[in-house]
């Protein structure tokens, strides 16, 4: 029963990352670049690079969690990404930057910045819980399948 609960949490976390990465990856990268520019945290050269690379990172993390492949690395990346989002969105709130939509999911969902902080805290907590229980989290995963068959 416990393993099914962890599987559900893993799928929820995976779907958030896949939805977020998918929306950005299928759109022209200029749209995500515009969102990054609004947060005013990166130099312009890095903003362009991140706008192209980051959607693929989100997708990779999401797929890793969904199929359970390289789970430890996937969960570590999910923790780092969620933690970074909290810092980036937090500084935007403190600086009162005029951002009325976080842009986290492209045009899929519009979330105000304060709402995003709670979402990212939930994601961070989920990733941490799953990392701390890796054995249970590996239930129904390709990682486990690879171990048992090799």
């Amino acid at each position, binding site marked *: 029963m416990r393993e099914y609960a962890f599987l559900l949490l893993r799928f929820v976390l995976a779907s958030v990352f896949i939805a977020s990465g998918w929306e950005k990856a299928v759109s022209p990268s200029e*749209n995500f670049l515009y969102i990054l520019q609004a947060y005013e945290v990166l130099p312009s050269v890095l903003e362009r690079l991140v706008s192209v690379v980051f959607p693929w990172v989100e*997708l990779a993390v999401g797929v890793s969690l969904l199929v359970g492949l390289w789970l430890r690395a996937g969960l570590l990346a999910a923790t780092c990404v969620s933690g970074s989002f909290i810092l980036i969105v937090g500084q935007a709130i403190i600086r009162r930057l005029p951002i009325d939509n976080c842009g986290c999911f492209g045009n899929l969902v519009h979330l105000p910045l304060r709402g995003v902080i709670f979402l990212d805290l939930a994601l961070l907590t989920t990733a941490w819980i799953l990392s701390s229980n890796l054995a249970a989290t590996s239930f129904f995963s390709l990682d486990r399948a690879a171990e048992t068959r090799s």
Partner: protein
Amino acid sequence: MNIKKMLWTVLAGLVVVAAVLFGRGVSRGVSAAASTAPVGRSAGNPGAAVKIVEYTDFQCPACAKASDIMHEEVRRNAGKIFLELKYFPLPMHKNARRAAVVAECSLAQDKFWFMEKLLFSNQKSWEDLANPDDYFLSLARGIGCDDLKMMRCMSDSAVMARIDNSVREGQGRGVKATPTFFVNGKMVVGHQGLKDAVTEGLK
């Protein structure tokens, strides 16, 4: 290193890349096919070296700022820039669509650019109104538009259809946010990269 795990990783990577490439084709191709004749409002020299298409939302503060920059660029580079404006009211801006309608109706009375300027400069006054039409009509009156013609036009379904076509066309080109510019076909979202793109086009 586990060979099976490596193979699954490569397979997963290929599936993701293929899905994204397919998704890009679908999300742009379908919307573009749905678009009919482009809706454009223009300024400047049609034979200019720099052709800019702007997708705008009259309720978006960044679009108001971009409009100032854009008009300044057109003035500064007279004859070298051709600007075409298209509507892209975002769903999160409740009065943006009606503002696009009033702008389109003012076009029929040759007051489009006056109305564009008024809508942006008075954005704060109408963005939260429950029914902005009376306010929009007062703006139209102020620039000499005929009241009756405006009212008739603002309830014309053909005008709404033109706004929708403009939105669909933008979606077909990958527009998600406003302002989005296409400077000689190159996509620029927001006004930050606009000056650079224009300078590059003028070279």
